[in-house]
């Protein structure tokens, strides 16, 4: 653990982050998009923790931000899933690209 520089962690979280972005852009299913968002949030949590641990080990800001971020993502997921279930109940599908009732271009 002592011989791994901080950059490695950051590269790891970057890969996670851009994988999440790729998923968010390309997935058709709303739930899959939400999973991608979770990946993005997870990547930021890692960054919080890593920056705290490596640069300011005597403080706890990064830890707490990661903690709160987890809580907020839990809340966000709960609401998003409620909305998605509602959409499914009304439209019988959760395809992001077909949710265009308000768009006259279709």
């Amino acid at each position, binding site marked *: 653990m002592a011989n791994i520089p901080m950059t490695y962690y950051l590269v790891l979280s970057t890969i996670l982050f851009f994988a999440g972005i*790729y998923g968010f852009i390309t997935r058709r299913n709303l739930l899959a998009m939400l999973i991608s968002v979770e990946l993005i949030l997870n990547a930021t949590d890692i960054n919080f923790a890593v920056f705290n641990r490596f640069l300011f080990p005597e*403080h706890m800001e990064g830890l707490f931000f990661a903690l709160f971020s*987890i809580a907020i993502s839990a809340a966000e997921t709960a609401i998003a899933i409620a909305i998605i279930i509602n959409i499914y109940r009304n439209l019988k599908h959760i395809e992001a690209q077909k949710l265009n009732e308000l768009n006259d271009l279709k």
Partner: protein
Amino acid sequence: MENGSIASTLVFFFLAAVMVVSSILAVTTKKILRAATYLLFVLFATAGLYFYLNYSFLGAVQMTVYAGGIIVLYVFSIFLTSTDEEKNQPIRSHRRWLGFIAAAAGTLLCVYLFQASPWGEVYYRAPEELPMKAIGNALMSADKFGYILPFEALSILLLACIIGGILIARKRQ
């Protein structure tokens, strides 16, 4: 020390490999339930990374909230909304390519930036566990470096989420 060092390096690379592979699979697999499963792997590996960084409390929270709570929520909602269509219809290819190029470019750009940054020389110096008591004190204190206000705000947010979730998802008569 030398052996421990090598073992710990191996642990890190193992966790990193699990996370990278699982995350890429999570966004590329066609089956949504598999995606959720790969996400679970990523979250577990992240919790492992927190333990590895001696953030045991954070790792525990990650395990319970994410892996225990959120993934279960996902799985249930996937069962509730699963249709057969999604696996048949391919994602529009030009968008997939654009997304891939953008993501790859972003990754490369970030890697380039990290390589240019001074962080490549920063190593982990103080391998001691953060005491649980300190976390509890900070979370509940109103002093400097105290987190009582965000803590309370977050609890209200969660309450609002519970009510909102119930309101949105309940069946209308």
